[in-house]
């Protein structure tokens, strides 16, 4: 569900539908409310190994958003530690298989490969950018955390985050646009 707020920012609520995805354009500022699943290198490795063996995944990714992050430990009394994005490109080899299962969004930083961008167009998905290195800032939007798989991986475990107004920007939309390319073109001199 998407609503354009008075401040020009789009408020979206998870899970995402194809129509939600198609209405987002690269460069849109977005606030996400709902659920994000964290997964980075090691968790992706395990998820894809399960798929290759024809086994079910510990989470249903259909309509969901995966946040590429490995949070720092929470201090007592805090929900989570620092929780900024890691580089999305490292997940490129795994991503198309998850998109084929209905994954609708990813949050990270840095450019994605051509095959991933193609798969995003084909399966209708969005790659959001969160500000890398702003982990303290972003932690304030996380209201609840629960480990749902691979606790042995520590920071790389899959966590279910409940977020309110989590701030991101659309980097790659489902129409083939790329904020990084457009931004660079606009400001190069």
């Amino acid at each position, binding site marked *: 569900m998407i609503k354009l707020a008075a401040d020009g920012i789009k408020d979206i609520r998870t899970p995402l539908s194809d129509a939600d995805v198609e209405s987002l354009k690269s*460069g849109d500022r977005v606030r996400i409310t709902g659920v994000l699943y964290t997964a980075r290198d*090691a968790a992706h490795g395990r998820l894809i190994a399960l798929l290759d063996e024809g086994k079910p995944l510990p989470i249903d990714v259909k309509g969901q958003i995966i946040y590429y*992050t*490995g*949070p*720092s*430990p*929470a*201090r007592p009394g*805090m929900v989570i*530690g*620092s*929780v*900024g994005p*890691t*580089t999305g*490109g490292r997940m490129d080899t795994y991503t198309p298989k998850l998109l084929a299962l209905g994954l609708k969004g990813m949050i990270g*930083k*840095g*450019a994605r490969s051509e095959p991933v961008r193609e798969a995003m167009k084909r399966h209708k998905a969005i790659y959001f*950018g969160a*500000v*890398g*290195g*702003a*982990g*303290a*800032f972003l*932690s*304030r939007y996380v209201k609840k955390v629960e480990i749902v798989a691979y606790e042995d*991986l*520590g*920071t790389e475990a899959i966590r279910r985050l409940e977020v309110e107004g989590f701030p991101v*920007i659309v980097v790659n939309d489902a129409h083939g646009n790329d*904020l*990084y390319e*457009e*931004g*660079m*073109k*606009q*400001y*190069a*001199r």
Partner: protein
Amino acid sequence: MREIHVSTISDAVKKLCVEANYDLEPDMLRAFDKALKTERSPAGKQVLEMLKENAQLARTQKIPYCQDTGFVVCFVELGQDVHIAGGLLTDAINTGVSQGYTEGYLRASIVKSPFDRKNTGDNTPAVIHVDVVPGADLKLMVMAKGGGCENRSKYKMLTPAAGLERVKDWILECIKTAGPDACPPLIAGVGVGGTFEKAAILSKKALFRGIGSPNPDPQVDAIEKEVLDKANRLGIGPQGYGGDTTAFAIHILTYPCHITSLPVAVTIECHAHRHKEVTL
């Protein structure tokens, strides 16, 4: 001969690791403000404002500036009139790292083997470089080096015929290929000369100089300024969203080199430039 006990070294390293991750150095905060005056891109400005607030939250709320609390790189300048008592220097540093990361709620990001990739659990070991220097002081320079930007660091063996112009092009190329992945605005630490490993180590050490401070060598200073100006015309901007602030600084260290060689190493550092030092 002056004696320094290993526990003094561990305590110092622990403090440096924790402080580096919570308190960004004032030169970085000044760099954010300076960039905000010239940045044309609205998205770029929003990023810079967010980073300022992030730094403030990290310091006041004790939440690490970035969740990647880094690989600890420790440069040691060991006075040759110092005797380290009670154990080994390396163990003392790693004990400090372990205590700092465990007690300071910092992320453990180091795996024991590059192949089996099992986390060591306390962010040890550090990467340690020791220089023996005159005197009876022990200087510890600690950096919490982020992995995302480190992955974009590069090395090139140029020929002497390639010369200075190609060195400048190569630094620029490294910044361009690092792009949005390495969390710009970036700082490029550059080592030119020496051998393969010497240039790489210099490229890390170069990052300890204050942002905005001139290179003591006027010729090298002019090179740094020229490359920085070109980097900020690439258009990459804060976080790669487009803009005028792609890099905060280019810091170059040089060393004599072989008649056949012109090695150039570029360490890419992100805006989460976390480093602290102390002299014992």
